[in-house]
């Protein structure tokens, strides 16, 4: 059903008539109170009217939870709002809430997961023929009687801007199974989606612990992804407990200090985990670095092996700031090629023996 809520008349509603505990259409998760919204409401008043609907215990909020909360805190006693008509079905109201959020600040991944949960619950209840919880109407009242206003998950996915398909549904559901700390970090964008998918494999307590470590060490999104994945793979492969691995990595203590100390700790933990997860590759990297250092070419001349030692494309970096330096570097290279060819050749032998 397409109800144009925007066309409804504005009514003055006393705030006491609102059932503030009814969260049937509440999607908000992991958001800080918005100071900008407070300032805007103070300055210009309620420019976007909230949408309310009639429930069992008074009116409940469909759109505008945060606006109304601030409005009440600012000392107002009534608000100009729209009230959904009685024939509006539950999924239509939820749809309006989703749409308004999407058009405004956008829904984060957890809020999308919440929308999916609520949508699916309503769908299932409508399908089963009972849906009176929170006063939401299960069905569309038509002249022929009650007709279920059944809307599919695919409709929700398009509302959220996704292509229909079970994979997205699985993904959103999985995020909702994370610990609260992990969900909050995901909602705030401090934890990337890729890392969240991996964290699911840990217990809620372990998730909390790992997320707090990643936040304390100020990991970038890429670091979060790599760290959580390598951590999980190491635990599984080595059958090592999370706490034991954290102890090995030096992450079993309070992680605070100056920015410099945190940076050092971050680096050493990531390197230790990399060595643990990739013992062979780490050894090859160390061997290569040692062979190169033995040539004594200095920091200005760096032969870089193929990425992850895959393929045979090497890169030669020469850092110079004058023609004289360039000449010296070229001469040094030529001299090594001439006199220490075997050692140079060994840099190109990407082999490994246990």
């Amino acid at each position: 059903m397409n109800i144009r809520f925007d066309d409804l008349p504005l009514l003055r509603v006393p705030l006491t008539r609102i059932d503030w505990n009814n969260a049937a259409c509440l999607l908000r998760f992991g958001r800080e109170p918005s100071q900008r919204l407070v300032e805007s409401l103070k300055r210009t008043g309620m420019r976007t009217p909230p949408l309310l609907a009639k429930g069992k215990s008074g009116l409940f909020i469909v759109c505008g939870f945060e606006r109304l909360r601030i409005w009440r805190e600012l000392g107002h006693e009534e608000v100009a709002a729209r009230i959904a008509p009685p024939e509006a079905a539950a999924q239509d109201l939820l749809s309006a809430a989703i749409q308004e959020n999407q058009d405004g600040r956008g829904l984060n991944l957890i809020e999308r997961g919440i929308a999916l949960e609520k949508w699916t619950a309503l769908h299932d209840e409508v399908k089963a023929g009972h849906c009176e919880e929170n006063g939401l109407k299960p069905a569309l009242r038509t002249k022929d009687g009650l007709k279920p206003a059944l809307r599919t998950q695919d409709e929700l996915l398009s509302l959220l801007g996704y292509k229909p398909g079970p994979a997205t549904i699985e993904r959103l559901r999985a995020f909702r199974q994370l610990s609260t700390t992990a969900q909050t970090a995901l909602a705030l964008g401090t934890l990337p989606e890729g890392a969240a998918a991996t964290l699911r494999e840990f217990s809620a307590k372990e998730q909390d612990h790992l997320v707090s470590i990643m936040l304390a060490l100020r990991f970038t999104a890429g670091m979060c992804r790599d760290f959580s994945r390598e951590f999980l793979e190491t635990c599984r492969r080595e059958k090592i407990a999370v706490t034991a691995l954290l102890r090995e990595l030096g992450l079993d203590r309070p992680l605070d200090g100056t920015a410099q100390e945190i940076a050092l700790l971050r680096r050493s933990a990531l390197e230790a985990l990399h060595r643990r997860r990739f013992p062979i590759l780490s050894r090859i990297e160390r061997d290569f670095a040692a062979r190169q250092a033995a040539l004594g070419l200095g920091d200005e001349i760096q032969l870089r092996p193929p990425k992850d030692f895959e393929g045979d494309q090497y890169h030669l970096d020469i850092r110079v700031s004058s023609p004289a330096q360039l000449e010296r570097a070229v001469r040094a290279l030529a001299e090594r090629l001439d006199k220490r060819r075997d050692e140079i050749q060994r840099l190109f032998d990407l082999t490994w023996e246990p």
Partner: protein
Amino acid sequence: MNGISNIAFPIRKVYVEHAVHDTTITRNVLQRLGGSVPVEFVEDGRDIIARHRRERGAQRRGKQNLLLTGFRAQPIKPCPGTPDYLCCGYQILNFGTGCPLDCAYCILQDYFSNPFLVVQANCEAFLRAAADELRAHPDRLYRLGTGEFTDSLALDPLTGYAAILVEFIRDFPNAALELKTKAAHVDPLLHLDHRGRTICAWSVNSARIVESEEYGVAPLEARLEAARRVEAAGYRLAFHFDPIFHYEGWEEGYKRTVERIFETVRADSIAWISLGCFRYTPGLERVIRERFPTNQSTFAEFILAGDGKMRYPQPVRVRVYRKMLDWIRGAGGEKALVYFCMENAAVWRNVMGYSPRSDEELAGWLDGACWH
């Protein structure tokens, strides 16, 4: 019905397109199943594939539902290969997709997301189209195989396709057929006049991997015994060590398999041996996690290679291949043509001391083994 009992899951339902209800393959399947499973006739198999695409559990159910369709696709397709890695130029004789065997590492689990084993049941039309292509390019050599998107022999006890293909290919001087399998059901091949145009190939592995990763397949010794029997029937052989897993104690297992091959068949019967280390796509990893939760094969050291697949680090692969090559040479395969499946030029040079300059050059070497 020997052989079909080996497959991982029994066929539970057969779907038959109306258009192929009376073809040789359909008759074979229905007669050999003997009314033991329900049969549903459908107008167009593509519709039910579309309806069930990406369903949960598709990989498992895809081993139980057999769909017999009319011939629509290209009869011969080049192997898709992978960028930056050398491909042997194998051409796929596309007689079916999906595999009833159940190997945990199988990449088809990621490639095919529908719950059907699909067989082109109109083999007359299929082979007519293949013949047209082979005749249209008489100067081109076609090294054909049926083991890319399915196992060449796993469904043969039901379909009887292999014998039809062997007798088809023998009349084309510019074509050779490689039947690649993990099955041991070779009886129908033994008395055919194959004229040397078919190579029977087995995918082999260490005994530990056969036991822990390959479900519903013929045991290693049964595969080797099957190889011995087709060798006695005059077929040339090939062996594919692909995927090779690098685990603790891998050397012992793979060395033993190499030795068993050369103890069982004559070295000069072997047309080629391919080597390829385990690699996987992120999609395959998800399937393995879901279907085989205790499987550890993806927990080893892998790097993300340029083709988007996870591979063992190159120095590890080089070491594995060098050892494999030593064992093959030492066991009697001094002259055996050994090649790498989907490896880069650096690996070739590090192991063999040379590298094909292109896919075409590598294809030429293998063609040489077919038309020697």
